[in-house]
């Protein structure tokens, strides 16, 4: 483990993503990106989340290709358990007919769950390995090597997810209710009188926008806080061992719960978008 001068430095280091941006000098990393504004890529977030997503989809795809209707293998049984769980939830909450909702819910649930579960990897392990690689492979100061592995503690990830859901909400609202119906829904509720159109519009817009916002902030907040606590616990010496254990056990509950909430709310929001009044 690299030595840090202060606890604050340690925490800051662990809460900073590995950044990449392109400037006039070519592609540069981390501190050189401080002035790059929007066009900065968090390579650790993207790398880990894409790696996790591809692993999960590849596994499910391979099992699906070899799926038998007879006695399933153990892997198939496990995956079918997850698929059925998602399918049951979709069927109980979403009454429209859509080929997209169930796979969307499955992708969200499993992907978010796996991304959340990286929270249980010891906080120092991967940053330390990355530091060693940076130190001995590229001659960098390990303190300049960043590696924040939990993609859902990056607000970009959670906002990307909820933005995707938000686009689908708008798409389904327009598709099912039409432009007129959607406009009416935004302006004629809850007070059905022309005078109240501005008032209604403000209320309904806030309702509409609050959905993706709360969706992403809930996931981000929970994961960021838990990661922060893990890092804080890691700064207090040997007493950290039982505390780490307790906090990790607690998160066996929290992490799947957050993934489940994200999936359920996605289904509910989309079914609301598909409902005609």
């Amino acid at each position, binding site marked *: 483990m690299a030595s840090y001068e202060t606890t604050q430095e340690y925490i800051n280091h662990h809460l900073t*993503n590995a950044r990449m941006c392109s400037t006039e000098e070519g592609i540069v990393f981390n501190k050189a990106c401080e002035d790059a*504004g*929007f*066009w*900065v*890529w*968090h390579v650790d*977030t*993207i790398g880990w*989340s*894409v790696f996790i*997503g591809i692993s999960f*989809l590849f596994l*499910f*795809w391979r*099992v*699906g*290709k070899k*799926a*038998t*209707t*007879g006695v*399933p293998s153990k892997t*198939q049984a496990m*995956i*079918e358990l997850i*698929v*059925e769980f998602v*399918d049951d939830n979709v069927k109980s909450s979403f009454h429209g007919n859509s*080929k*997209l909702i*169930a*796979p*969307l819910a*499955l*992708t969200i649930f499993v*992907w978010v769950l796996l991304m959340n579960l990286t929270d249980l990897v010891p906080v120092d392990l991967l940053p330390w390995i990355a530091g060693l690689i940076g130190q001995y492979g590229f001659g960098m100061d390990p303190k300049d090597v960043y590696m924040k592995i939990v*993609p859902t503690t*990056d*607000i*970009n*990830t959670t*906002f*990307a*997810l909820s*933005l*995707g859901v938000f686009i689908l909400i708008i798409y389904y609202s327009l598709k099912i209710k039409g432009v007129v119906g959607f406009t009416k829904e935004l302006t004629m509720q809850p007070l059905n009188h022309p005078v109240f159109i501005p008032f209604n519009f403000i209320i309904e817009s806030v309702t509409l926008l609050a959905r993706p916002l709360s969706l992403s902030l809930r996931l981000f907040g929970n994961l960021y806080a838990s990661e922060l606590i893990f890092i804080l616990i890691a700064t207090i010496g040997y007493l950290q061992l039982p505390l780490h254990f307790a906090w990790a056990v607690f998160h066996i509950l929290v992490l799947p719960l957050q993934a489940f909430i994200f999936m359920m709310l996605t289904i509910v929001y989309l079914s609301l978008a598909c409902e005609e009044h």
Partner: protein
Amino acid sequence: MNFNATLIGQLIAFTVFVVFCMKYVWPPLIAAIEERQKKIADGLAASERAEKDLELAQSSATDKLREAKEEASKIIELAKKRATQLVDEETQKGHSEREKIIAQGHAEIEAEKNRVKEELRKQVAALAIAGAQQILAREIDAQAQSDIVEKLVAEL
């Protein structure tokens, strides 16, 4: 909280994952699950039907068994009756046969007795004649006295 291009990258990754899942992951898995559910439902229905069939077969088997038993007892009854009848008949026949044989015996004995009597009579007559001849030979001619002999024979 710093929004940056990662958002775009993650949004693209998310879209690609969802589309891939919708096209290649979800359909075969859910198809397999639904087909298995159908299979299980069919199997359960079939087993229920088989159970009902079994029950039916069992009750019909009991019926058949009872019928067969009744039939068998009837046959046995009949056979017993027939047997006693046969025994009676045979006894009757035996009795009559015995009577007949005995009667025949009696008749034969009677005939023999008569024959023997006749024989004896003849022999006694002959003996008497011979006796008389010998007696008379001393005194009279046999021929001349034959009417007396005849009378004697008739008297025997």
